[in-house]
């Protein structure tokens, strides 16, 4: 176990090009929350200690001034803590998470269809011809491969129950819902092998719905896809209906 993944109080190691923005926001947020917890609980402890069995209690339910103070304190806290969270989260959402311009415009974007099934992740690549639903489509089981440094555009569905695609090291989570194609994208920042997890309870073996995500050098990825595509064409069986779960690639949402 390497040092980075061994730290209990840390997020899973970040291997994506954009995840650091979420991580930084979480770190800021936790510092603010920690500070707030200290102040509030410290104040509570101080109040209990200082006024324990005090001889005289105030006879009123607060003055106009003390009530204004409460409202002002609440508004300031809300503005600072919720405000940073809101603004920076909105920035991430607009520029990364829900901004499909990036994968749409990038010339080397990798398109990937993922079908979740009890209890495996089926991944489909368009193959050499660049079109889905043809004989050279490459299909893998719980073994996803992507090149480093380019956007990976994922379209996701499910054949049976609701699953949840999680790439913890890429800050990606998306439900796989039967009858719908959900979309997301991410970009790997470095090569390596990471884990694909299911985060929605999907039956008894839910905990075993584990896959691997291998981030490869672009040349190695191209070579792998070419070879896999050739083999797929050779092994193609038009009568095998279970193998034809793919869909025509959808527009960006």
């Amino acid at each position: 176990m390497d040092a980075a993944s061994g730290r209990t109080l840390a997020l899973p190691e970040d291997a994506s090009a954009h995840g650091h923005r979420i991580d930084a926001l979480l770190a800021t947020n936790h510092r603010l929350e920690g500070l707030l917890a200290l102040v509030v609980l410290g104040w509570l402890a101080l109040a209990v200690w200082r006024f324990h069995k005090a001889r005289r209690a105030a006879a009123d339910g607060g003055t106009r001034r003390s009530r204004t103070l409460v409202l002002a304190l609440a508004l300031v806290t809300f503005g600072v803590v919720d405000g940073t969270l809101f603004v920076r989260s909105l920035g991430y959402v607009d520029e990364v998470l829900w901004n499909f311009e990036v994968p749409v415009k990038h010339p080397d974007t990798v398109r990937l269809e993922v079908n979740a099934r009890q209890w495996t992740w089926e991944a489909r690549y368009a193959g050499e011809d660049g079109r889905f639903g043809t004989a050279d489509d490459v299909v893998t089981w719980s073994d996803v491969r992507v090149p480093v440094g380019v956007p990976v555009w994922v379209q996701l569905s499910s054949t049976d129950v609701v699953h949840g695609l999680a790439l913890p090291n890429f800050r990606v989570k998306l439900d796989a819902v039967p009858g719908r194609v959900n979309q997301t994208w991410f970009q790997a920042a470095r090569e390596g092998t990471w884990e694909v997890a299911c985060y929605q309870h999907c039956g008894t073996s839910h905990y075993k719905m584990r896959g691997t995500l291998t981030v490869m050098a672009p040349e190695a990825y191209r070579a792998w896809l070419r070879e896999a595509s050739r083999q797929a064409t050779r092994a193609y069986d038009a009568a095998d209906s279970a193998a034809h779960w793919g869909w025509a690639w959808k527009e960006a949402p």
Partner: protein
Amino acid sequence: MKALLSTDHKVVARAYLWAGLGFLGVGGLMAMLIRWQWGWPGRPVPGLGWALPESGGALTPPAYTGLFTMHGLVMVFFAITPLLIGALGHFVIPLAVGARGMAFPRLSAWSFRVFAAGGALVLVSFGVRLGTASAGWTSYPPLSAAHVFTPGVGQTLVMVGVVCAAVSSFLGAVNFVVTVVRCRAPGMGWGRLPLTVWGLFFTSVLNLLFVPVVAVATGLVLMDRVVGTRFFMAGAAVTGGGGDPLLYQHLFWMFGHPEVYILILPAWGMVGDFVAFFSRKRAHGYRGTVVAMGAVTGLSGLVYAHHLFTSGMAPMMGRAFMTLTLIISLPAMVMFLNWLMTVWRGSVRLTVPMVAALGTMVVFGLGGLSGLALGAVATDIPLHGTMWVVGHFHLTMAAASFLAVFAGLYFWFPKMFGRHLHTGLAMGHVVSSAVLFVAVFGGQLMAGYAGQLRRLYDPYQYTFLKHLLSLNQWTSVAAFALGSAQLLFVVNLVWTLRRGRVAEANPWQVGTLEWTCAPSPPPEDNYAEVPEVLRGPHELSQPEVYERLGRDWIGQAEALPEESKASTPEAQPALGGAG
């Protein structure tokens, strides 16, 4: 049996109390088993050989899925709800508003009967072939809706049980709302209601609005499951086309999110009252607190879709629900600060209910803070579906409402049974529970931050979670300690009911109607004479009361010696908004 026949709200309340405590024990034992599995996966559970002979007492994946499903369902629908609302609500509301009983006494009895029927179905489900429900407490279809995914009659029985619990909550809510609106004693204006009553009132409003939604959603799943409709079964391999599984998620969370407030509003109300009572002063910003609780109630249904940030929702919806979700933290902060200001400049008495209320504040505060990151889309993504979520909602829904249940129980026990629980045992119970809650659910927050997904039978299947084993073991040890600490309460209860000290008339020296106008326990009609309410619920440490009565409290319906003379028409305006 008497409980099933009686229409006296106090008898119904006690029936809910015993049933709720029983289910709390069942749900708690299931939690211990889940914690065992995360600490020592696949290892036989000591003493469980009789239940799982094939595996020698080790939890199997099917047994485990049944456990976490039923732990959630039992705790939400059959433990916290009946304890907070069924028991404390039924007991306190009529007494606190000065009524002779509930508005519809027979409806009270029916709400308990329907609840008991649901509870019986749940208990039966553990004994059927293929076991109890296993689709998670959220029961997402198609998993919950098709026999191929959740075979056996257990899932069906439990979902019928949930519908029963929902119907029971709805009946109770009708009764509470009408009782508070129509049956208040003369002079009991809205501004004189104890905050507990306000909390229970808002909870009942939410139950009226949103419980039918969950009943419908569950009913439709049952139809998919039993009759073969396809409301929620689109594109699933087993069925072909038809409905939409996501529709269920919207319906479920439209109830499921307000449910969080349904379970916490009565707790907030009690905290508001108890910090005032035991700081010996009026609640700071009473009206602000009530408005804040009302604002949370009003917003509660508008934030539900933050549970669906990762469901593939339209970006426009994501932005809208993020905004609304963060806004709801503002009234919560106002309320919290008002509690703090109530303690400030008070004369703090650390009685058991007060310590439990302070503990509620601490765990609720931590729970609320840990929820902020789940309210914003970007930070929700790494934490969604992890133990962070579990830790967060257990701090707010489990720890806070549990401590509030016990605050309320320790407070009203003398009124319910005429006896005092042992203070030392009670204090040990409350303090150790509060500390251990923070340890257990804090451990869950840490595991979730490090990425541990919830509900995994064996989290260590994933290499990136392997290093969390020792953290999980420590958390489990804390959980077992927490479970054991509950024995303090059980011992106290048994001992007190047999030979506890007989309670004095007004042990807490507060002015609310139940303590100042009725004996303990109150007779069938509560009040020999319906009290006429003259003042608010927290009239403590008032100088003129000191002066004339020589004590720091005065009953809500008690006239000051001179006041009776002075209550001539020209003196009325000085009392202010009497109702």
